[in-house]
């Protein structure tokens, strides 16, 4: 059943493009064009197509195929904590053409 809350959550969902500025400042890298593999479902994809939830206290990125957690970023006055355990080890820096 689709409740109103579901619809709001879905409507608030952004994608990897929306967090690219934050990550580019942190990593000095345009993450949107990275090709990567999800460590949960092993599906390959492009960073820009990850689902982004940015309304919470931090940024959360999830796999568009299995919804698995890919990346979390929490900012605090003393620094940023970036967790990327949802990325399989073979994150390729292959740049898409």
């Amino acid at each position, binding site marked *: 059943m689709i409740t109103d809350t579901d619809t709001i959550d879905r409507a*608030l969902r952004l*994608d990897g*493009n929306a967090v690219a500025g934050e990550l580019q400042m942190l990593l000095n890298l345009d993450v949107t064009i990275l090709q990567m593999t999800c460590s949960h479902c092993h599906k390959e994809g492009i960073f820009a197509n990850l689902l982004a939830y940015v309304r919470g206290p931090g940024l959360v990125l999830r796999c568009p195929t299995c919804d698995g957690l890919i990346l979390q970023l929490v900012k605090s006055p003393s620094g940023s904590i970036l967790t990327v355990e949802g990325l399989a080890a073979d994150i390729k820096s292959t740049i898409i053409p």
Partner: protein
Amino acid sequence: MEKIQWQIARVKAIVQETPHVKTFTLHLPQWIPHLPGQHYDLRLTAEDGYQAERSYSIASPPEKTGEIDLTVELIEDGEVSSYLHEGIEPGDPLEVRGPIGGYFVWKDNMANEPLLLIAGGSGVVPLMAMLRHRAKIGAANPTTLLFSVRTADDAIYRDELEQLAKQDSQFELILTFTRKAPPGWTGYQRRVDQAMLTDVLKRFASHPNGFVCGPTLLVEQVANTLSDLGLPSTKIRTERFGPTGT
């Protein structure tokens, strides 16, 4: 890639595009050439230190140097868009960083391939940068923009788009009105659906590069339908704007 930093832009001009949409021309001390489809992040800081950040696509083509145009739709209860619409005047400073994102971009090496642009509401903004740049470089690739708007009042850049379509036989503008079509309208009057996308895809002799942008739910539905209709997923680039618009 250039290193991006926060910088203080100066508002040079403000144009009312539609009753709910304004374009802000920002002069940038550190202007970096962008690719059509890229965006800037904009940050507001309150006196107590509270900050709000939002992304806004670049509407101007890279040929317009030293400044960028951001086109912002006023969202009801919207924190940042209402501040921009109600609190900003020419001469004011605004903190921005960019250009950002190399995925949702139309590159010059696509200039010979067919192009399908699909927008809902303010999702037309990055697509407009693509169309403006395409016109500047004189590309003649078959190009269609399917633009979903609520009413005639909501069709951002409509005059410019109709002008472009008139001058360029390779560019077709298709509008669909989801709430109220103008009097005498004979075109589409509904949300983008499978039948409409089938019609649009039929216009292309080969798979076009597809760019879909707008409210999240529209983008996801359109991208899924295009894929059901056989457009390879590598040919479909999407950008979700969140809970805005149509």
